[in-house]
């Protein structure tokens, strides 16, 4: 696949083409108000840092009704749960950052795992075309390179867009993306070298990435049993803000809500930081205190997911948990401690 370019004066037409037959979502608003919103083609903003929350709610809303039943015995299907459908719709999302797209690709392997396919997720992701916007000026809390990604990363995207002066470069990554770009009337251009140059500069701005490879090779139980978890978790409030903001956190709870006429089974985001998350009916809790719960979160991101996903880490370096944590528990510091554990075991 070749690259393409959209000249500054053709940008609105490009976004019109993206929006044709689909809803076009792009980041709108500033700071903590920045989120993906439906955007008229002439109102797309390329000057944003990143959305306040990760884009996972597009495919995995915080609250989603899965199925419903009614209790009217005089009508068919009383007390039988019926699917409410997966509610997907054709979407074009422009401006997802590579870290977040990678997060979606990691969650995608959970929602479509080796045994089961989550139809609610699949129904949405299959109808979405994701156009990422590369980061040419990463934020201070960004560390995608340290986690094996890049400000120009391609995982999870259909098209990678990047700023080429005042123009917009496009690199289609999937057949779906290729089709979209071709339909937009963008001109082909050989930009492979330009991308390399821009990427190198963007990576450089994150400094020399720390090396966490030790974790990948370390024994799981050695990492798990290391005494540092007690100190790592000591100041944690167990609030779970990190999990709500994380682009790869995908845990949920399933709950029934009822009314006079029947009920709805819905799923809601849940957090491994909560005591309730793992407690058994008997009262036994496999992760009874915050130390176990904090350990679970970081082990999941940095060891369990890589084991299950061919070495890809469950953290993409978006930096949200670092920025949002009320007590500044920094996953980079934790990864460093785990790396030290690994080194001392080796």
């Amino acid at each position, binding site marked *: 696949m070749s690259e393409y370019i959209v000249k500054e004066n053709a940008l609105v037409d490009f976004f019109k083409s993206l929006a044709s037959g689909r809803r076009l979502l792009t980041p709108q608003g500033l700071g903590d108000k920045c989120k993906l919103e439906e955007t008229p083609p002439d109102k797309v903003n390329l000057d944003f840092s990143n959305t306040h929350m990760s884009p996972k709610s597009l495919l995995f809303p915080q609250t989603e009704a899965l199925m419903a039943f009614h209790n009217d015995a005089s009508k068919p299907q009383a007390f039988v749960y019926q699917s409410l459908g997966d509610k997907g719709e054709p979407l074009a999302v422009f401006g997802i950052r590579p870290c977040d797209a990678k997060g979606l690709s990691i969650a995608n392997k*959970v929602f479509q795992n080796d045994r089961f396919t989550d139809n609610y997720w699949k129904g949405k992701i299959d109808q979405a075309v994701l156009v990422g916007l590369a980061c040419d000026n990463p934020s201070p809390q960004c560390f995608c390179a340290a986690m094996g990604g890049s400000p120009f990363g391609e995982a999870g995207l259909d098209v990678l867009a990047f700023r080429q002066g005042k123009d917009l470069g496009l690199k289609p990554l999937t057949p779906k993306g290729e089709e979209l770009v071709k339909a937009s009337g963008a001109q082909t251009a050989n930009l492979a070298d330009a991308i390399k140059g821009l990427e190198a500069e963007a990576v450089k701005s994150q400094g020399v990435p720390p090396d966490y490879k030790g974790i990948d090779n370390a024994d799981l139980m050695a990492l*798990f049993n290391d005494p540092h978890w007690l100190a790592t978790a000591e100041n944690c409030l167990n609030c779970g803000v990190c999990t709500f903001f994380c682009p790869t956190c995908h845990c949920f709870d*399933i709950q029934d809500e009822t009314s006079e006429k029947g009920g709805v089974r819905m799923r809601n985001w849940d957090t491994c930081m909560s005591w309730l998350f*793992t407690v058994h009916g008997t009262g036994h809790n496999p992760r009874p205190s915050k130390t176990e719960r904090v350990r679970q979160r970081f082990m999941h991101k940095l060891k369990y997911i890589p084991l299950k996903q061919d070495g890809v880490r469950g953290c993409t370096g978006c930096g949200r948990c670092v920025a949002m944590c009320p007590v500044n528990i920094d996953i980079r510091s934790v990864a460093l401690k785990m790396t030290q554990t690994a080194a001392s075991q080796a």
Partner: protein
Amino acid sequence: MNNPYLPYPVRIAEIRVETEDKNLRTFKFEFLNPEDEEKFAYLPGQFAELSVPGQGEIPIGIASSPSEKGFVLFTVNRVGQVSSYMHNMKAGDVMGIRGPLGHPYPLDKLKGRNIVIIAGGFAVTTLRSTITYLLQPKVRPDFGKITFIYGARSPGLLLYKDEWMAWEKRDDIDVFVTIDREVPNWGYKVGFVPAVTKEVCPPPENTSALICGPPVMIKFTQPVLEEAGYQHENIIMSLENRMKCGLGICGRCNVGPEYVCKDGPVFTLAQLNRLPKEY
């Protein structure tokens, strides 16, 4: 698209109170749509999410055997919101089951081997399924000696009385049922499961053990088997953890990188040795 969250509608055909404290009831379900029974093709050791409309779901091991057609059985302990609600339901009520979920006991890999089945309390459910499956005339010749050790606190807390009494009369399975303390007119063994295991457990050669029971029973039975010479690969256990989706997605039942629901619940002791004890 197939919806793995959507339960098959079932009707409660029969409810049987299993124990004298009435905390365990066995529910016999019939599928509302007969074609769902085929889709619900399971093997011993798998579980399902029992779905009560408006209350929620609970993961429960399947107590019936695939050889028993026309119905499925689940024995449910009264513990939380859903199970308590189920204990107040009656025959004819409609609810749902979702599954089968998890992996079965690896019986296909155990062909030609002796099997010792050790159960404690109400954890016997999936092992009832296993024994019923193994004792089919067509299946039984594939396996060597079968030994069944089953314990509970008192006679009134033993499940499936008619069945194990019938098994006891057969000569193709050795049955040892035990209670914690002597009671009058008790014609079987007395003592804790580990002690009985020590006494009657077959030699480890060409033998696999399936164990399911409360943590304290497993804690003390495991050394007995080790002492008898059982390799950890041949000690097979079934775990439980809090679950919601049963599909390896919702994230709460993991033991290290493995999800008890999707990758388990059946693990060998050798596998568990390499995993955190978060269960």
